[in-house]
């Protein structure tokens, strides 16, 4: 009885810590971003609910949620910490995944997909047994000659996502013949590139340029536009060759990509603090980027990245002033 009580206590504390972390992340984002995230969550909930009513939709949703949970489990960095606390890791993991799946589980129950509900719970249970964390020991034996040495975000990000990006890149090249397919994949790849900007570099790296904030930002944008240009040009050029009559589609995608890339960079420096992890901030801009693909809603989102970039640019200048004020 006493052991059970201790377990419930530990479990409750772990869930409490997660909720506190979530609250802190939301507070750090600011109220208007929280409203945007809430809107996305509601829209996603509505989309999931709609999809679940249709026959194969429920399977796709279950698979998607399972995949996300698996990714979180494999890459979570607190496995050793949980082990050290002496808690029963299996139960902790399962309770956490089940707890945060509640909204989806409720939707599954509402649409009377009990088998999907049980399948997801079983998957979470099995997942909790897996104690695998990928090692980085052997990664990084190759270099990326097309990335300038100053572009550490891309060097790091491409190294981290090399397999996934290579697969998508090859797929985009293979599907050049088909309308929109390669452009769609290029858009998805830009969502991965967005994750390159979730980490804040140390202060001494910012300082290396010895430039005032405005020039620092312009130089940064130039450098990253150049890298994106080199990265995307084989796909865009190939698309233009195969679809000569609709070259403008590739051009529009390229221009929109550059605007979104600016947003990723500027939103990082708008809230930059040395050594900070900006996952929540990064998630928001990635969501906006991905939602531009959603029919109907996407059209209304087209001006959003541009407006947000302008706002983030102003905030970046102000924020970087603290770190680069010596270089006016």
């Amino acid at each position: 009885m006493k052991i059970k009580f201790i377990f419930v206590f530990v479990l409750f504390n772990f869930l409490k810590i997660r909720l506190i972390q979530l609250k802190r992340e939301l507070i750090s984002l600011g109220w208007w971003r929280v409203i945007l995230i809430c809107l996305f969550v509601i829209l996603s909930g509505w989309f999931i609910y709609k999809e679940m009513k249709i026959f194969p939709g429920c399977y796709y949703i279950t698979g998607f949620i399972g995949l996300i949970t698996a990714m979180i489990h494999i890459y979570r960095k607190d496995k050793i910490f949980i082990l050290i606390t002496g808690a029963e890791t299996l139960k902790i993991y399962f309770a956490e995944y089940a707890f945060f799946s509640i909204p989806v589980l409720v939707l599954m129950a509402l649409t009377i997909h009990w088998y999907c509900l049980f399948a997801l719970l079983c998957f979470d249970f099995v997942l909790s047994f897996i104690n695998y964390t990928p090692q980085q020991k052997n990664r990084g034996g190759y270099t990326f000659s097309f990335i300038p040495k100053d572009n550490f975000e891309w060097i790091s990000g491409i190294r981290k996502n090399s397999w996934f990006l290579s697969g998508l890149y090859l797929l985009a090249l293979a599907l050049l013949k088909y309308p929109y397919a390669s452009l769609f994949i290029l858009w998805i790849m830009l969502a991965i590139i967005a994750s390159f900007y979730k980490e804040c570099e140390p202060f001494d790296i910012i300082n290396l340029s010895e430039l005032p904030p405005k020039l620092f930002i312009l130089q940064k944008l130039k450098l990253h536009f150049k890298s994106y240009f080199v990265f995307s040009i084989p796909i865009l050029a190939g698309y233009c060759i195969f679809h000569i009559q609709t070259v403008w589609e590739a051009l529009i995608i390229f221009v929109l990509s550059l605007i979104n890339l600016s947003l990723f960079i500027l939103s990082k420096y708008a809230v930059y603090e040395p050594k900070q992890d900006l996952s929540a901030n990064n998630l928001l801009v990635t969501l906006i980027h991905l939602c531009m693909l959603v029919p109907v809603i996407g059209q209304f989102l087209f001006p959003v990245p541009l407006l947000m970039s302008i706002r983030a640019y102003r905030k970046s200048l102000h924020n970087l002033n603290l770190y680069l004020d010596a270089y006016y």
Partner: protein
Amino acid sequence: MLTIKNLTASYGKDSVLENLNLDIEEGMIHGLAGINGSGKTTLFHTIYGFIKPDAGTIQLNEQPLSRKKIAFLETQNYFYSNIKGKEYLDLFPDSTSTFSVKMWQELFKFPLNDLIENYSTGMKKKLALTGILKLDKPILLLDEPFNGIDMEAVRIIEKLLLRLKEKGKTIIVTSHILETLTAICDQIHILENKNITRIYRKNEFEGIEHDIFGEMDEKLKKWMND
């Protein structure tokens, strides 16, 4: 001369430094000693311009000190993830024609082609130090450069700092190990009660240990006997 006058710095309502005065002679190695939380890192952050002081001035030869003249080694070194040692060093411009990455690699034995997250704490410290030395700035702020470093590297860094002093660099260094400071410093400044309370010159180092630890040693002796 680097002159700090009436410096007051705080984190919110908690003041860490109050009316601190300090004169740093150029071309010398200055040690900064004090217990944990005494404000050594805050003083470095303020000199570097990372914290805006509430009051007071920091001047180099009667001109406001610019960050352009300073290289700063932080206590805890953070590196961008998934970056190799060589890629990290490539970010730092070669400000000195005599700098050779190969020589440093041989001295410190760090695996430049490995990812930095696989480095030990000491290796990371050595890599960060190599990076800031590449900048060739006239003032070096070194916050705990000997932390987590092996004996061999401690000796190399000591020799290196003495060589940099000969070249005219002004070095301010903190350490928890008094011996490392007495071995290389020309002056040791004691930071306590939010201010510099004592300054020891090289010929006064013999009595420093007794001055700092004397009272504590007496207390310990008494407690142990009880």
